[in-house]
């Protein structure tokens, strides 16, 4: 038995799925399906998504969290995802890393929000040794006191998902679509978006970050490339709950026909053209 085999002996298996540029809605659908219908452990790394998209938590209210006039005007898609947590705007500069695990996958880890969050921070802590002052502040990953990663979770009877969106890079102008939320972490201290967050690219390259993550995961799991079949949907009964909000839900008045306003159908057509429903390659 080789050293790596010996190390792997006894470790639970995790399917490592490397993606690049997958639309975020498709990723959320995949994650929810794996959470609810798979019995295996998964680590999904999506290196950047497509066009800028706003993603709110499961109970997010668009009017409270977004500058909806600008969002409607610029036809920015708004998705309500199946996990809790806050609002982010994601694009090609966002790196997504998701863990979907059985609750007994990690020995000694209890499936409460806090322990899962703490465990996940151990994964990333290793990568920043000697590079930056990484820590988990409240529910965010920060360097110093600047947030670069936001977390959300869903915990079911026997499994949990913990997913993170990392700001490797971002457009300042995109942050303008997000309002200051009413519930903020204490350490934010009334800073606006740009003063509050930072870019991961100032600390390391994308590949160093992703490779470092995979090495860290290998300390807890035996990594495995998933079969394409594992990701197909054998049960046609599963309906994911993450979805794109309609213009009405974003607050557009149905009775008013403003000149130059794009109608709902063409709005949906415009944004859904970038969300293909083809299966994962």
């Amino acid at each position, binding site marked *: 038995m080789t050293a790596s085999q010996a190390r792997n002996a006894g470790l639970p298996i995790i399917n490592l799925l490397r993606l690049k540029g997958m639309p975020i809605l498709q990723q959320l659908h995949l994650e929810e399906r794996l959470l609810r219908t798979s019995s295996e452990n998964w680590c999904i790394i999506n290196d950047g998504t497509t066009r800028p998209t706003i993603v709110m*938590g*499961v*109970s997010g209210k668009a009017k409270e969290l977004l500058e909806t006039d600008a969002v409607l005007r610029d036809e920015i898609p708004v998705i309500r995802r*199946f*996990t*809790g*947590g*806050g609002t982010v705007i994601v694009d090609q500069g966002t790196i997504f890393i998701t863990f979907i695990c059985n*609750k*007994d996958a990690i020995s000694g880890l*209890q*499936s*409460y*929000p*806090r322990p899962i*969050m703490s465990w996940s921070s151990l994964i990333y802590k290793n990568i920043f040794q000697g590079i930056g002052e990484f820590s988990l502040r409240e*529910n965010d990953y920060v360097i110093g006191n600047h947030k670069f990663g936001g*977390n*959300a*979770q*869903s*915990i*079911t*009877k026997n499994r949990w998902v913990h997913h993170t969106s990392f700001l490797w890079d971002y457009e300042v102008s995109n942050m303008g679509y997000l309002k200051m939320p009413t519930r903020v972490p204490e350490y934010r201290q009334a800073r606006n978006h740009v003063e509050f967050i930072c870019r991961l690219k100032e600390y390391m390259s994308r590949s160093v970050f992703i490779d470092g993550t995979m090495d860290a995961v290998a300390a807890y799991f035996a990594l495995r490339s998933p079969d394409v079949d594992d990701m197909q949907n054998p049960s046609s009964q599963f309906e994911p709950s993450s979805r794109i909000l309609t213009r009405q839900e974003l607050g557009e008045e149905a009775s008013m026909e403003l000149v130059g306003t794009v109608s709902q159908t063409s709005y949906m057509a415009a944004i859904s053209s970038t969300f293909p429903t083809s299966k994962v390659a």
Partner: protein
Amino acid sequence: MICRKFHQKNPRSLSQWWRFVSSATVPPSRASSAAADSELVSVFRAQDGIFKKPGTLFSSKNRCPESSWSIAIGISRCRFTTQTMADDPFNGVVDVPLAQTGEGIAECELLKWFVQEGEQVEEFQPLCEVQSDKATIEITSRYKGRVSKVLHVPGDIVKVGETLLKMVVDEDIFSSQPSEILEVIKAHVPDVSKPEDAGPGLSKPKVGGVMSTPAVRNLAKQYGVNIEDVRGTGEEGRVLKEDILAYAARGDVLSETSASADQSLEGEQIFPSISSTYGWEYEDQTIPLRGFQRAMVKAMTLAAKIPHFHYVDEINCNALVELKTSFQRANSDAGINEDSQEVTLKGSHNIGIAMATPHGLVVPNIKKVQSLSIFEITKELARLQELALANKLSSDDISRGTITLSNIGAIGGKFGSPLINAPEVSIIAIGRIQKVPQYDEDGNVYPASIMTVNIGSDHRVLDGATVAKFCNEWKQFIEKPELLMLHTR
């Protein structure tokens, strides 16, 4: 049900189980709700050719006994269960609050309900989904019962400790199934993770210096035990449910038949050395059910809810006996049990073998039988038998079976009416091979070794035709074992 009396070699052996089974007259009162609860694997619908479909699994997802084993393991992990704070659980309705979901979380938003008023819920069934901070969390029910009133609607903010819903709890709450199975696992499977009563998220206030949950303190009250006298075996000296039960049982004989209709928790204390003024010489002795016996009571009570049908047939084993003899000659491994007469079916996955041990009835299973050779199966069977006798079966050995074989014939009897080992959907009782005269094709009499089998099946899943076809195919392989070579991969 046709049952015969068997010669009892050992008390509380397999034969006693049969006697218990044959006298059980509990009607399947919850059959309809059980049917509603169980989700059936779609593959079973294949009507024919189970040998052509090796992947076919006959298994119901009504997972009570199987999950009862996993409950013990699960109980050492944290669950987002509701914890009752009822003062008087015996009027039936309990307030079920939102339990602590994490450090520092004082309230959650209710997102959606999975159950509605009037609905029957099982233990650990998800009740609702809440959101706290960054996480959506499924809240599962700690108890089995019926939802009587839902107190919040989606969108409400519910404080930790506030009542979520009211439930009518089915059984007496504190002699709950998890603690029984917990005992079984603890007593008999020492290598399983240590059972703990509750996770760190649940409140554990101290009472006069003793740490315990409200449920455990109530239990102590019911048994008339001063909790401060009990030595806690949990983390940091926490007093657990089993500590109370063990303390109460020490020195007193408790009556705890969970099959009894008596809902009272008051342990009857019977003093064996009582002397009566009436001069009775013989006293009834109440023996607490422990270990496998207790698990068996539970499993059989559950099995009684399943609508069984039984299919009986006779199989000519002449060829099989010859084959077995030639195997034995070829392989002189002393570890093989010479009395074993099990037959392995291709197409089944994890085949359980009922074993009568000095500790009671247990059903370990041989995994992935379709991938094993007969030799490998025999070795695995021997291994499981040794473990069963030594009372060292692991929980994996006894779970995830897909069908059970009961070789009652090894002890005696022509055939019996076996009860299904839920959540499986079929069980086969194999009677003793009897030598009887038979007619061959030319009308001549010849001695034949005839074995009677009784296949008990869940009529919600299997119909007579399917089982008959299965039995015919199986019978063919036994009567003509050379056909096995045709199909062996």
